[in-house]
């Protein structure tokens, strides 16, 4: 070594610049204010305490409520939670875009139906059948992964989507496989056995004809076991390897991790969880139809995972609860209406905080509404004579403000909807005062469309609303509600 470089010898282990950078990073990630304090306090509660509390709350819910509907929603929510946990393995940890995921849920449901119904004449006991079906599902996942294990991103998505379509085609046409009926086609499989453990059958409904709570408990038990097992796997070398391959497959391979095998394992695991979920869903429904496993379900599960935060188990469970409850609330026009206006005001507050702009936009929209309605009413009385969908108090209030024609022209609904979408897109192109000014008619038109178009069609509206929420969330919080902050390239 030459002499001159000895002068630049670093002076011991003083940390200096590095330290500062790291501390700054740590400060930035932490949330400030009361929310931050709460977050820190809650962080000290151990995860299993949370899990126990959560399961206990859901378990207690149906006890007090003698409503079959609520119980059904609770059961479906647990099913969605399990599906989200399964998808989270593949997408959140493995980083593999698997669009065929719901098919494995279907495989599980059909496998259960075929091995425990009169259709096949086989009646395996649940204690044997459920693990068996989970293994069948995992095997199916492994098989689908086999040809696609070298694919990444979009390519993998297409292949798995293709597999999903194959599943739908096969189940829909499985009523005539060389003359034999395997899946009974679109008519589905009926008279599937309910769950039975050690010769003791769990009936689907109680003697009073009410939804049997036991099914919720079975689902919850599986949820608890799956949650804990997956958490343990995530904290093991396999979990670390999954996340490594999500981050950088080449680097993972170079660090001694067999990337292809790990991908197959992730696929198999996700599929196994989905198939497991399919068993008791099938047992409760007593029937399976191909249309139970179509794209809306896939989109719902993806929504849950994205909303909750990919990679976060707590996040996806929370996401499942939110989406499931939201979808139910939106079924009812009155609840949906309240939700809409509250969300609108909250959204505006989130965008503007307490500023004059908030007052201007909100006030402007309200005034515009009354003016337009008065003008419209003066021109032709029938334009404002309509009653809003599902007359409640909120409906009457809304009808005083929004134009609700008695007999709207047929072109009105689609036209208003298209103009609204155009306006929203236009809003993203303009800025400053112009945007503020354009926001007022847009909001009013949104309310108009909501009252006249969307409330009348809750089935479509539910998914439109979920879509809007997702778009908004992706802008405000791309990593989802509880997802880890992620960086792609730094």
């Amino acid at each position: 070594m030459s002499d001159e470089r000895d002068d630049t010898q670093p002076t011991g282990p003083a940390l200096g610049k590095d330290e500062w950078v790291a501390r700054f990073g740590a400060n930035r990630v932490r949330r400030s204010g009361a929310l931050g304090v709460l977050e820190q306090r809650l962080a000290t509660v151990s995860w299993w305490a949370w899990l126990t509390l959560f399961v206990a709350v859901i378990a207690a819910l149906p006890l007090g409520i003698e409503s079959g509907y609520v119980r059904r929603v609770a059961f479906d929510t647990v099913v969605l939670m399990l599906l989200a946990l399964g998808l989270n393995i593949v997408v959140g940890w493995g980083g593999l875009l698997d669009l065929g995921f719901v098919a494995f849920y279907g495989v599980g449901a059909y496998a259960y139906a075929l091995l425990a119904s009169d259709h096949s004449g086989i009646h395996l006991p649940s204690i044997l059948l459920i693990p068996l079906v989970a293994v069948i599902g995992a095997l199916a996942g492994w098989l689908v992964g086999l040809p696609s294990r070298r694919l990444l991103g979009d390519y993998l998505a297409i292949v798995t989507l293709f597999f999903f379509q194959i599943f739908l085609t096969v189940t829909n046409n499985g009523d005539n496989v060389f003359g034999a009926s395997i899946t009974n086609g679109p008519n589905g499989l009926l008279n599937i056995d309910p769950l039975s453990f050690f010769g003791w059958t769990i009936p689907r409904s109680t003697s009073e004809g009410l939804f049997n709570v036991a099914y919720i408990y079975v689902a919850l038990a599986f949820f608890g076991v799956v949650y804990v097992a997956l958490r343990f796997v995530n904290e093991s070398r396999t979990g670390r390897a999954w996340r490594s391959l999500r981050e950088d497959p080449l680097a993972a391979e170079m660090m001694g991790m067999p990337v292809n095998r790990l991908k197959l394992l992730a696929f198999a695991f996700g599929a196994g969880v989905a198939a497991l979920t399919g068993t008791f869903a099938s047992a409760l429904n007593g029937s399976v139809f191909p249309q139970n496993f179509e794209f809306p379900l896939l989109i719902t599960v993806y929504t849950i995972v994205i909303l909750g935060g990919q990679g976060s188990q707590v996040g996806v469970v929370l996401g499942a609860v939110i989406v499931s409850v939201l979808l139910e609330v939106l079924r009812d026009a009155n609840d949906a209406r309240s939700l809409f206006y509250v969300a609108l005001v909250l959204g505006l507050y989130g965008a503007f905080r307490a500023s004059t702009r908030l007052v201007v936009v909100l006030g402007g929209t309200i005034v515009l509404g009354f003016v337009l309605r008065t003008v419209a009413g003066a021109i032709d009385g029938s334009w404002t004579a309509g009653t809003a969908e599902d007359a409640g108090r909120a409906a009457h209030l809304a009808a005083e403000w929004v134009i609700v024609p008695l007999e709207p022209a047929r072109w009105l609904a689609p036209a208003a909807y298209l103009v609204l979408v155009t306006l929203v897109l236009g809003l993203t192109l303009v800025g400053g005062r112009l945007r503020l000014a354009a926001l007022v008619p847009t909001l009013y038109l949104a309310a108009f469309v909501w009252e006249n178009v969307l409330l009348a069609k809750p089935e479509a509206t539910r998914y439109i609303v979920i879509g809007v929420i997702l778009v908004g969330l992706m802008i405000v919080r791309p990593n989802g509600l509880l997802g880890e902050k992620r960086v792609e390239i730094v």
Partner: protein
Amino acid sequence: MADRVLELQGVTMAFGGLTVVDALDLHVERGEIVSVIGPNGAGKTTLFNLVTGVYRPSAGDIRFEGSSIVGLEPHAITQRGIARTFQTLRLFLNMTVRENVMAAAYGHTQAGVIRSMLRTPGMRREERAIRALAEERLGFFGERLVGYRWDQPAYSLSYANRRRLEIARATATNPRLLLLDEPAAGMNPNETLEMAELIGKLRDVGGYTILVIEHDMHVVEGISDRVVALDHGVKIAEGTFEQVATDPKVVEAYLGTGAMARKAL
């Protein structure tokens, strides 16, 4: 023949009509630090990719500790005892510093998924060992990567620390041969000097045999037992730093023909 850790015999790599590495012979003895130098596009990183199994050579043989590793999958080669770092850093950015290193212990640990789900005592013991290994490997860098850093995401590290973490991660695979791809790239003079010392320490204390690609000639001069110069995939010189640095072919590769003549003008 001395204890040859790595030996390349007539290794050729062609992408279509373009030969990137041409009939290359190279060997690394146990405990040596060998530097590979050469201008951009000389085939240095391709050489690393060939040794680690990213590419399969079009011709020739690569032997690690006496047995051929041609055709093995990269992870299998790593598990045999070759680990590398990357010229363009490839850390698992969204995982913690400790997890980055723990993940690399995958190849020499056993606990399967079933055991992990059940948290068997054996699995927990192994997990503790992995954690201890990671902390020990991170401790190799003095105070740079210890303590509060362990639980920070890798993306929060400074550039120099990321380079250090990459080396720590590579050593967690328990390699005998370390391939370092431009370990001092992008570092300031202080950090570069520190890195040069570290590479020496990796050999002397860690006991690793090291093959390193480096552009900083001060580093190359300081650390190398032997230097190999490549140009257009061909070995143009080999020997001590002095021998290689004064080799007319090397000067020509770096500065072009007539460089000396222009200087004279």
